[in-house]
C-alpha cells in the first residue's frame, strides 16, 4: 500500500514537472522552434504508434492500414476546420462544394461556445468516421490471418488515399492539390491551456484510455487472441467481436492522430498518407517493442528527434579547417539514421522495452542495483 502511494507521488511530481516544462516551452517557443515541432510531431506519432500497437502488439493482428485511417481523420478535420473566408483560396481550382460552404457558414454563425469546441468536435467526427469505416471493412478483412490481413489493410489504405486524391471528389478534398490554411491547434479550457500544449493533452487522454483498455478484461481477451486464437475461442472469447473492437478503437485513435497531424502540418495532401507513413509508424512500434505502450511512446520521440533534428548536421557540408568532410550533403542523414536503426535492432532484439511497461518499481530497483554495485567496488 505504501509502495503504491509512493509511486503515485512520484508520478504526480513528474507530471507536474512535465507541465511546467511545457508551459516554459510555450513562453519561450520562439527560441525553441525545433524542439517544439519535434515534440509535437513526436507526440502525434506516439498516439498512432500506440494505437497500432494495440492492434499489432496486443491483439496480434498484423495490420498495415494505419495511414488510411489517419488520412480519414486528417481530411475530415481539415475540411471542417478551414476557415470560411479561406475557402476560395484553398479550392481555387475546382471550387468548393456548396454543402461544405453552407455548413461552415452555419458554424461561423453559431454561438461562441460551439465555435470554441468545434475543433475538438471535428477531431471526434474524424475519429468516428474512421471507426465506422473500420467497422464495415473489418467484417471482410478480419477473417483473414497474419500476412493476408497485412496485405488487405495495406490495399485498403491505398484505396482510401486514391479516393481522396481522385478528381471526382475535387470539390470536397481538392483532389491532388491537397488542403491548406488549416488552423493550428486550438487552445483548451478558454486559454488556460495554450494551443502549443493542446496536442500533448489530447494525446495523453487518448493514450490513457488505451492503457486502461489494455488493463481491463477486454484487454486481457485481446492478449489471449494474440497468444493463441484457437485456445482463446475455446475459452469463450468471440474472436470476431473482439478483433473488431480492437480494429475499430485502433482506427479511431489513428484518425484522431491524423486530425492532429493536419493541424500540425497546416496543409495536407493525399501523398502525405502514402504507405511510407505506415512504415514509419511500424518502425516506431518495432523499435519501441511490440506489445509495449511505453516503448511506442519513447521510440516515437526518439525516432522523430533523431530523424528531424539530431542528425540534421549530416545534411550540411562540414568543414574541418579547410578540409571538407565527404558525404555530408542533403540526404546523408537518412543513411546514418538507417545505420543507427540497424544497430538498435541488433542490440535490442525485441525493441527498446520488449513487452515491458514503465513502472517506478523497476526503475528504483535498477537504481538501487547500480548503487549497490558501485558500493561493492569500493
Amino acid at each position, binding site marked *: 500500500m505504501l509502495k503504491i502511494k509512493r509511486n503515485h507521488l512520484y508520478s504526480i511530481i513528474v507530471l507536474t514537472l512535465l507541465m511546467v516544462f511545457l508551459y516554459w516551452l510555450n513562453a519561450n517557443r520562439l527560441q525553441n522552434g525545433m524542439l517544439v515541432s519535434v515534440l509535437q510531431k513526436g507526440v502525434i506519432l506516439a498516439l498512432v504508434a500506440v494505437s497500432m500497437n494495440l492492434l499489432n502488439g496486443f491483439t496480434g493482428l498484423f495490420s498495415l492500414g494505419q495511414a488510411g485511417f489517419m488520412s480519414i481523420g486528417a481530411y475530415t478535420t481539415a475540411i471542417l476546420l478551414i476557415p470560411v473566408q479561406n475557402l476560395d483560396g484553398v479550392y481555387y481550382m475546382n471550387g468548393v462544394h456548396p454543402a461544405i460552404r453552407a455548413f461552415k457558414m452555419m458554424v461561423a454563425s453559431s454561438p461562441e461556445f460551439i465555435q470554441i469546441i468545434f475543433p475538438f468536435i471535428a477531431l471526434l467526427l474524424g475519429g468516428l468516421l474512421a471507426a465506422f469505416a473500420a467497422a464495415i471493412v473489418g467484417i471482410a478483412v478480419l477473417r483473414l490471418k497474419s500476412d493476408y490481413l497485412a496485405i488487405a489493410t495495406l490495399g485498403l489504405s491505398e484505396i482510401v488515399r486514391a479516393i481522396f486524391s481522385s478528381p471526382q471528389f475535387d470539390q470536397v478534398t481538392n483532389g491532388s492539390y491537397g488542403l491548406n490554411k488549416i488552423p493550428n491547434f486550438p487552445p483548451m479550457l478558454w486559454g488556460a491551456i495554450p494551443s502549443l500544449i493542446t496536442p500533448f493533452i489530447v494525446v495523453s487522454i487518448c493514450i490513457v484510455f488505451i492503457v*486502461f483498455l489494455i488493463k*481491463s478484461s477486454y484487454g*486481457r481477451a485481446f492478449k*489471449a487472441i494474440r497468444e493463441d486464437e484457437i485456445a482463446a*475461442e475455446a*475459452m*469463450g*472469447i468471440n474472436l470476431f467481436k473482439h478483433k473488431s473492437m480492437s480494429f475499430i478503437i485502433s482506427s479511431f485513435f489513428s484518425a484522431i492522430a491524423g486530425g492532429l497531424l493536419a493541424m500540425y502540418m497546416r496543409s495536407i495532401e493525399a501523398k502525405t498518407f502514402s504507405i511510407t507513413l505506415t512504415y514509419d509508424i511500424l518502425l516506431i512500434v518495432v523499435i519501441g517493442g511490440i506489445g509495449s505502450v511505453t516503448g511506442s511512446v519513447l521510440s516515437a520521440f526518439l525516432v522523430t528527434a533523431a530523424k528531424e533534428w539530431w542528425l540534421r548536421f549530416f545534411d550540411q557540408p562540414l568543414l574541418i579547417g579547410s578540409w571538407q568532410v565527404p558525404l555530408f550533403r542533403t540526404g546523408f542523414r537518412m543513411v546514418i539514421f538507417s545505420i543507427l536503426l540497424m544497430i538498435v535492432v541488433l542490440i535490442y532484439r525485441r525493441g527498446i522495452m520488449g513487452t515491458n511497461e514503465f513502472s517506478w518499481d523497476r526503475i528504483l530497483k535498477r537504481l538501487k542495483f547500480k548503487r549497490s554495485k558501485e558500493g561493492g567496488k569500493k
Partner: protein
Amino acid sequence: MKEILLKTEHITMQFGGVVAVDDLNIEIEKDRITALIGPNGAGKTTAFNVITGGYQPSNGRVTFDDLVIGENYPRSKMKKIYNGTYKTPFEKQVVNTPDKITRLGMARTFQNIRLFKDLTVFENVLIAKHCHIKAGLFRSTFMLNREEEAKMLEDTEALLERVGLLANRDEKSSSLPYGKQRRLEIARALATGPKLLLLDEPAAGMNPKETEELSLFIKEIKESFNLTVFLIEHHMNLVMDISDTIYVLDYGKTIAQGTPAEVQNDPAVIRAYLGVDEA
C-alpha cells in the same frame, strides 16, 4: 432414470473423400466419466472438434443439455460425394462457434497444450473468466465494474488454490513443468464454469506417476465442481481406472461401447488394438 447431458446422433464427418468419423452415436450421462478411445487416426479428436463447434459435421446432430448446438446435412458439393454409413440426411442446419458453445457450458483442453504462453498462470485463468463478463467495453475500461472485476480476481485466486497452482501464480505459463501445464489447462477450462469438461488426451506424454496424479485430480475436480467428464485417452490404465463408460473408435466407426470390463474383453477392440493374425 439416467440423465443425458450430451448426445450425438449419427455424426458423420467427411473431409473430401475421407470419412473421418462415421455414424457416431454417443450419449454422455450426467455426473459420469465417459471415455473415447481408439488407435491413432481413429477420428477421436475430429469427433471432439465436431462436438465443440470447431468443425461442422457433414451429417448429424449434436445435442447439449437438451439444446441442439450443431446440426447439418450434406449440402452442395458434399451432397454428391457423401459416403457415410448413415444415409438419411438431417433437415436443419445449426451452427455455433466454439466460443458460443463454451459459454453454454462446455469447456475443453487440447491434445498439444495450448496455453497463453507469454502470460502468467494467473492471467491464463483470469482470461477464461472473461467469457461471462457483463460489463461492456467502456464500463470495463473506465473501471466502473469494480465489483465484477474484483470477483473475477477472487474466483481466479480461489480456483488456483483448489488446483494447487497458487504458488506458481506469477510464473510465465510456458515455464511450468509439463504436468503442471496440463493441470493449468484444465484449471483454465474450469474457469469458464462448465457443466461438461472435455479432455483431449490429458495424459499424453506423462510418466506413470504423473498419470496417476492426473487420474486422482480428474476424480477430485469432478466431485468438487459437479462435472461431467468426457475424455479421449491413449493411456489404458487411466481410462480403465476412471471411466464409467467407454466408446471405442476405429477408422471412424464405433466398434464397441460399454463399461471398462466389457470393452476390455471385446474381441473387436482387441483386434483393433493388437491387429489380426492374417494367417
